[in-house]
């Protein structure tokens, strides 16, 4: 899993983010992240744990340039996340991905491969390879509207890896998947990591993160409450779950 040479891939420095919700008389600010600082290094698998509303998805959206920070700075491969040159290296799986209903799985993947800069035979070869990898080959010609939740999730993973990104950001990647699919996704993550790709994933499944991660960040109410290394939870009584419960109860 973790390798020796370290290059910083993502860096958050004092990042804060609040959502503004229109109220009756004035706009209400709901803080999502408060002064977050964290780094991701090349070749590591980092997990993100937290209760609902802890700021996990916000971190991922900031990393992909879908949101902009209110304070602090973020760099992805040394560039702002909104820079297209940074995005070339990112693969993102949002929680519960949705696809254009009238496109087939192959058409959707070809479209996303094209947007990521792949063309012609190269794009088709990549699409063919990832469709096989996520187990969608028998359904490649089906429209997304006919897909089950699990198939959508597999297609979501496929679009995230179709352009062979250096940084893979996965928001709840095993949500809605059957045990076999979970196993395949886990293998896929390990394969990517073996080729020195960085994987950043969130999950409510502590056991899943425990299996694949080198480090886990525990978020509590928008703050980074604890960073736990594999050695820490392997030596702790109750494992990662014990550390998580303790951290959430006494942040």
């Amino acid at each position, binding site marked *: 899993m973790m390798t020796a040479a370290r290059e910083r891939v993502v860096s958050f420095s004092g990042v804060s983010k609040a959502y503004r919700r229109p109220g009756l008389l004035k706009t209400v600010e709901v803080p999502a992240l408060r002064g977050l600082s964290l780094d991701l290094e090349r070749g590591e698998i980092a997990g993100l744990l937290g209760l609902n509303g802890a700021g996990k998805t916000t971190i991922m*959206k900031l990393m*992909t*340039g*879908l*949101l*902009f920070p209110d304070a602090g700075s973020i760099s992805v491969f040394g560039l702002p996340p909104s820079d*297209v*040159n940074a*995005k*070339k290296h*990112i*693969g*993102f799986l*949002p929680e*519960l*991905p*949705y*696809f*254009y209903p*009238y*496109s087939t799985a192959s*058409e959707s993947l070809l*479209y*996303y491969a*094209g*947007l*990521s*800069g792949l*063309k012609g035979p190269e794009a088709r070869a990549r699409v063919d390879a990832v469709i096989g990898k996520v187990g969608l080959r028998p359904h490649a010609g089906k429209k997304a509207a006919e897909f089950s939740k699990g198939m959508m999730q597999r297609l979501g993973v496929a*679009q995230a890896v179709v*352009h062979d990104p250096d940084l893979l*950001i996965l928001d709840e990647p095993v949500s809605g998947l059957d045990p076999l699919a979970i196993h395949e996704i886990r293998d896929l993550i390990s394969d990517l990591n073996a080729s020195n790709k960085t994987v950043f994933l969130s999950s409510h499944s502590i056991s899943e993160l425990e299996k694949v991660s080198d480090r886990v960040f525990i978020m509590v109410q928008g703050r980074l409450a604890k960073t736990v290394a594999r050695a820490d939870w392997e030596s702790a009584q109750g494992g990662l779950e014990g550390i998580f419960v303790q951290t959430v109860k006494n942040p």
Partner: protein
Amino acid sequence: MTNLAIAWSIARHSLVENYKNRFFGLFVIFAGVLIYASLLAGVMAVDEEARVITDLGLALMELVTLAYALMAAASAITREVETKTIYLVFSRPVPRPAYLAGKAAGLYATTALMLGVMALIQLSLIYFRGFATPPFYFKAVLFIWCSLLIITSVALFVSLFSTSIVSTVTISGILWTLGHFTSEARFLIARASGASAPLLKAVAYCIPNFQLFNARDLGSAGPAAVSPGFLAGYLLLWISVPYLFSLVLFRKREF
């Protein structure tokens, strides 16, 4: 990948998704039935049958494609945001200007396709009744498309700040209606006095003049002749200004 190539890719995908959508087919079938029904009006017109079939058919084509274009433009980006498919686009190296241009171009191509199919239906009916293609026909279809390009661009812009698809369609529909009376409005505004006059004049220039593209009347008296260069410039202005305003709204939008 260049911005142009990305915009092209988005436009092509948008066109394919639009015409595969069952609403596209339903609108075309509906228009086809209405155009076919225009034969009845033509038969009743006796000596003017060819003209009635053509005029009525063109008007129906314009109205049906307008309804479709407004719905499609109002939901093009709104739906992508609601369904979160936009996450998969903007987490990639897709510049926002290229995305907007691609979405708009996809809509323009879809309306062109819809008009083309309807024109084929109408022309086949005209031939079926034994008439020749009216000399102004293709120009009239082109002008309908030009006015649809303008209203589609405006609707796409309105959809970026509007709260719902219905409000976008309503605002754009009002602009479309007002845009057919700009000459009359300017005539009345020219006679207005007091403090409100400059404001009214400014508002009048914020409404596109669709009468410039009313080529259906070419068959009879026709609109005042305007040079093709002016028309092309006017069209370009009314496509690019909403696009630039859209960019301003979209540049820092969060998802």
